């Protein structure tokens, strides 16, 4: 059992999704909900077990018994199992929220959510670059279905842009893979890191081109500055549970950048070491700035949340580009925190919007909320967390990152003002939005329906992480530090990652 544990977070959602499409379960929504929740919880359980198992050492799962680098492998190290756990948790909450009624808008929401979880888990676990492409496609095709779920003009329009852009991205990904395979002769990430230093001058130029193409592809997925225009329309158009699950999609891009630009093009890459840094630096700062300006200009809570996702991407790009263990560790803490809180904000926007009638979540005067206290507290906690105000997790994440950026004066001069300024602006934007949503009422005396307990439970579950991540801050930062250590010291782990030696 424990030998097959690394593949279970991929197989379980797949199995669940397939069963949900077959007769005994496909007939009734009630059975679908129960089964979807069951499989999501099972996935969460296996991710927890996997997390515990890999504490003893990196788990290598050799698919079909073909030894790496010739066969395909799954690698469960500190980083990937943490993110798999995060995905599974997010999956449970978004399925829980969907049970509150969003799954009535169209058929097959639950199977699509499970397919999406499978794709994301696979992308985190794979140790092979081509397999990363395959799992990207799995999660993308599920996301295409999810984005358009429920139908409507806005969704169709956002979908076409999203799909066309991502098809272009997939083509670029394949070209990059072709170039890297042609120069390095392998696509196993650990094996690539052993080959990259020994390239001749001509091959180096090709590998550099391939690596930078990968930066474009991951930048598109992560919503890095010039490639982030799809994010706003797509995330605002998507239904709430889908948007919540999408909160981790940008992080898949960030994760891939961590893997490729730290492991393959990292310290041990000879002349190609850190070759993407000069490109990522300005883009990271500009992404942060763009998100900040966008947050001020947002006219409704969903747009604001989408811009907060962009801000978190900018912040994480800074963590990537700092290229130190401390920065990576801070980045991982911030990644977990920002994913959970952004997902909670998307769900909250839907909850608030439903009680305000026609005004939905737009920042305009409207009738009173049905449950102002409950939603007010939830919104307040989410806002404090996302803005980075103590005592919640956002504060810890930002402080860790600021500390990591204090290595040289140049870094401090660029990173500190921008990060602090963006926090301030986020507070202003959230305060402005929050007062309008909760305090400015029209004379309309009609009342909306109370929120379904499923939905409140899902949001509460996500927001519980905010205080928990502070209380468990010690063990958690210890864990992210170890994860960063593993990522930065891949040469030390080569005997585990490539038991047969490099090709």
């Amino acid at each position, binding site marked *: 059992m424990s030998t097959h544990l690394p593949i279970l977070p991929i197989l379980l959602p797949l199995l669940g999704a397939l069963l949900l499409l077959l007769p005994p379960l496909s007939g009734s929504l009630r059975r679908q909900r129960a089964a979807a929740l069951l499989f999501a919880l099972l996935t969460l359980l296996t991710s927890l077990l996997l997390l515990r198992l890999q504490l003893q050492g990196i788990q290598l799962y050799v698919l079909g018994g073909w030894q790496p680098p010739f066969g395909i492998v799954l690698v469960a190290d500190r980083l990937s199992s943490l993110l798999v756990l995060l995905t599974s948790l997010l999956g449970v909450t978004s399925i829980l929220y969907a049970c509150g009624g969003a799954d009535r808008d169209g058929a097959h929401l639950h199977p699509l959510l499970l397919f999406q979880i499978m794709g994301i888990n696979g992308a985190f676990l794979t140790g092979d670059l*081509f397999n990363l492409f395959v799992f990207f496609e799995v999660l993308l*095709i599920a996301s*295409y279905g999810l984005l358009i779920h429920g139908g409507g003009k806005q969704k*169709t*329009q956002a979908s076409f842009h999203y*799909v*066309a852009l991502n098809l272009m991205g997939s*083509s670029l990904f*394949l*070209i990059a893979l072709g170039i890297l395979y042609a120069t390095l002769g392998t696509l196993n990430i650990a094996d690539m890191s052993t080959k990259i230093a020994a390239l001749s001058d001509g091959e180096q130029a090709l590998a550099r081109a391939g690596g930078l193409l990968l930066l474009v592809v991951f930048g598109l997925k992560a919503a890095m500055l010039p490639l982030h225009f799809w994010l706003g329309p797509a995330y605002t158009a998507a239904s709430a549970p889908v948007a919540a699950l999408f909160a981790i999609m940008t992080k898949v891009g960030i994760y891939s950048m961590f893997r490729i630009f730290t492991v393959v093009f990292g310290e041990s890459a000879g002349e190609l070491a850190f070759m993407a840094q000069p490109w990522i630096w300005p883009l990271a700062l500009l992404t942060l700035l763009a998100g900040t300006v966008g947050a001020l200009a947002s006219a409704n809570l969903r747009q604001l949340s989408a811009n907060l996702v962009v801000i978190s991407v900018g912040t994480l790009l800074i963590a990537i580009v700092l290229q130190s263990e401390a920065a990576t560790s801070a980045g991982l803490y911030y990644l977990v925190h920002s994913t959970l809180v952004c997902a909670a904000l998307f769900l909250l926007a839907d909850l608030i919007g439903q009680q305000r009638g026609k005004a939905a979540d737009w920042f305009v005067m409207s009738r009173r909320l049905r449950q102002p206290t409950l939603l007010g507290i939830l919104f307040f906690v989410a806002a404090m967390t996302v803005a980075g105000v103590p005592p919640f997790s956002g504060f810890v994440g930002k402080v860790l990152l600021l500390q990591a950026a204090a290595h040289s004066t140049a870094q401090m001069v660029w990173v500190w003002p921008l990060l602090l300024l963006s926090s301030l602006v986020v507070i202003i934007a959230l305060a402005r939005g929050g007062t309008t949503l909760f305090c400015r009422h029209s004379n309309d005396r009609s009342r909306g329906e109370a929120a379904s307990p499923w939905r409140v439970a899902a949001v509460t579950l996500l927001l519980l992480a905010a205080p928990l991540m502070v209380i468990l801050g010690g063990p958690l930062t210890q864990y992210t530090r170890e994860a960063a250590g593993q990522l930065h010291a891949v040469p030390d782990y080569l005997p585990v990652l490539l038991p047969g030696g490099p090709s």
Partner: protein
Amino acid sequence: MEALYASCVGLLSFAGIFLCLRGRTFPVVLGLTLISYAVNLFLFSSGRLLLNAVPILGSGERYADPLPQALVLTAIVIGFAMTAFIVILAMRARADLGNDHVDGHLPPPPTPARERGENR
């Protein structure tokens, strides 16, 4: 052979990118298809081009790299599914939005009023 192959890939990508930048959904879909052809050819060549060589060890003096062939096969299957999806999506967009522009609404007609006066 390399030059011919490379120019084929280049021509396909050129046509694909040109079509992708058009304003209607149908040319964009065609463009994406052409780009995926170009990508598949490119990926195939990443194992070096060889004539009369089978991808099996010990079958002759020379052998081809089997991995790019497997990669291309996967890429073709995925590309096919994605193209089918975007075709349906484009048709849905045409039905939902009432036009086939990629932005969902037609741009205003380009002829300014003064010019129309001159034509009269």
